[in-house]
């Protein structure tokens, strides 16, 4: 079948969201780990910041990324009329 302009826009917006979320994922994972030694100088409620991020902080960010993606995509699905009819 032929995709409409609206369909293409949906996919483009999905790609944009995906790219932004992957960028956040990359920063809290790899950029954080790369700069772990200077970040360890910062004290975060008793933890050195990089230890806290590796043990908890990054994990929380991962959870938020996935939660936000599911929520946002559900809204997009409905906005563009591609949601499932739960059939």
């Amino acid at each position, binding site marked *: 079948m032929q995709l409409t302009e609206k369909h293409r826009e949906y996919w483009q917006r999905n790609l944009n969201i995906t790219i932004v*979320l992957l960028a956040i994922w990359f920063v809290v994972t790899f950029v954080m780990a790369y700069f*772990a030694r200077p970040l360890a100088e910062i004290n975060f409620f008793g*933890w050195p910041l990089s230890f806290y991020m590796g043990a908890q902080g990054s994990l929380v960010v991962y959870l938020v990324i996935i939660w936000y993606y599911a929520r946002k995509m559900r809204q997009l699905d409905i906005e563009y009329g591609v949601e499932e009819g739960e059939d």
Partner: protein
Amino acid sequence: MSAQVSSNRAFFNKLKKYYSWYTGGFLVFLVVLAILEQMGLPRVWIGYVFLFATIALYAGIGIMSRTADVAEYYVAGRRVPALFNGMATGADWMSAASFIGMAGGLYLQGFDGLAFIMGWTGGYCLVALLLAPYLRKFGQFTIPDFLGARYGGHVARFIGIFAAILCSFTYVVAQIYGVGIITSRFTGVEFQVGVFLGLAGILVCSFLGGMRAVTWTQVAQYIILIIAYMIPVVWLAVKHTGVPLPQFVYGKVLEKVSQREKQLDTDAKELEVRKIFADRAADLRKRVAALPKSWEEGKAAAEKRLEELRAANAPLAEIKAAEKAVADYPKSAEDARKAWTAQANAAAARAAPVLHHAVPYYSANPDPVKAEEERNTKRRNFLALVFCLMLGTAALPHILMRYYTTPSVHEARKSVFWSLFFIFLLYFTAPALAVLVKYDIYTLIVGSKFADLPGWVAGWQKVDAALLSIADINMDGIVQRAEISIGQDIVVLATPEIAGLPYVISGLVAAGGLAAALSTADGLLLTIANALSHDLYYKMINPNASTQKRVTISKILLLFVALAAASVAAQKPADILFLVSAAFSFAAASFFPALVAGVFWKRANKWGAIAGMVVGLGVCFYYMATTQPWLRGVFGVTGPVSDYIWFGIQPISAGVFGVPAGIAALVIVSLLTPAPDKQVQEFVEHCRYPNLRGDTIDTLAR
């Protein structure tokens, strides 16, 4: 349509009710056992009750969920609600290594061990954003199914089958091995008997009901394993901080551990013990260098000493010790080289300075240039390992397969959230546990008198000296940090006793470890059997097979694969831990580029995907075969490792080279060969939208 929605909701409510009752029932069971223990129920009985009660429970769920329907057998009828699929994925994901080994690994490696915590959780972002919703829309039964449909022909599917089995088989052997260890340690049965007992537990479940039975059992197993992990940690947190929320308060404990480590760096007694180990290592290296003469001299000396003792009528104990020394003496100069080198390495490891737990990429090298070099290598390895573990997580077939079982694309997206949430509960607790145990040992055990050591120390030393051994090396009657040798698994296994909990909690921890190993083994066995029965037999050999026949064949294959895995595990293969971590690199390099390109790059074609998978696997394999000691032996690679190692990266992270090579091959070959036809383009569009009105393609397998 709305009837379906309300039926799904009714099903969800029913499940919620069942599992609430189940959790309540399990807690009552624990309380009853605790009371029985107070009344004098022997420990070994508690072990038996836990082992048989939980296996019987899983078998019961398996029997209740038995099925011969294809969609029920392969994907649990596609009606598993997001929350419950999340719990099942959590149990599927967390293996014996996560449950028992993870906290211990963090204890031994400090910050650098966090690569496992981040890698094994962050991978779910990739699953959520790049794979799960699209695979669910595709909606068939296995991962090779997707490769076969997207790239056409049998070649891509076949490589998929090969890679799926390669990754899953080593992993399942490790799980069954774990089951054998746990059952034999807690009930006293033989290791081999334990392996086959565990196998029975795995089989009743997956054999009768396939994915359907495995799903509902995994939910039950998740509940047991999370309760088993939390109770001892919370207790230990109360002991050291007074707050029952270890994850939020251990920062302060970590500060105290760091101060203690600095003290230990300059502690005179500690340095004395380390010096003794360093001398031992140097002495052993000297003897290795002087082989074979040193071997002959040592042999003569041992024999002479025995003669002298006998002649002098020495006490019996001394004579026995001398006899043992003669009997245990290496049989040849070659044996001596192996034994003494291993001993020298072990002694050198114990002479090493205290690891600073909270410091990233710690190096105690006094030479600042060398120290900086070591730190940079450690950092590179940390980044590479995180990369491999994340992409491997997002490519392991037994995990991806779980997202076929949800009722819709939206539920699949939500389900990844719940999966990570339930995994997170354990993974953000493990670093806290490691720090609390370290604090306990560094402040309460180190510096105490040998005569005052708590009972659990002696108990575990007796079970297995590799797990825990404390010996008075400098003969001052006081425990020094360097006199303690700790194995990875002890941290979780001994926590109930360190926290001063009754034995029933130790039994619970064993049951939790068993649940973790069994649930992962279930998922993996199903993946292998499905790859063989569905992809190889039904799709490639006999497409006319009746549904009845397909399910029967799948069940028979499951039995064979399970027996094969158990017989490999019963041999106690030595390099099992390496093989498991290698599975992540292999999965990442073989599946990840082809799966992601399958959805996001329409131009990717059959030849590109095949080249990508083969090159990815090949590069990984080459790197491991030339750098990993055991594989080097297998393939007869000689010459120094430094000739083969790239950027100092450990073989476990071979995927860091395999994945880019695979992506490059996929892109280049795709561009050099014709673009895929219109049908494939439409297939990709079909997968991209949860619901396309007027879509003519229907890939859903019912």
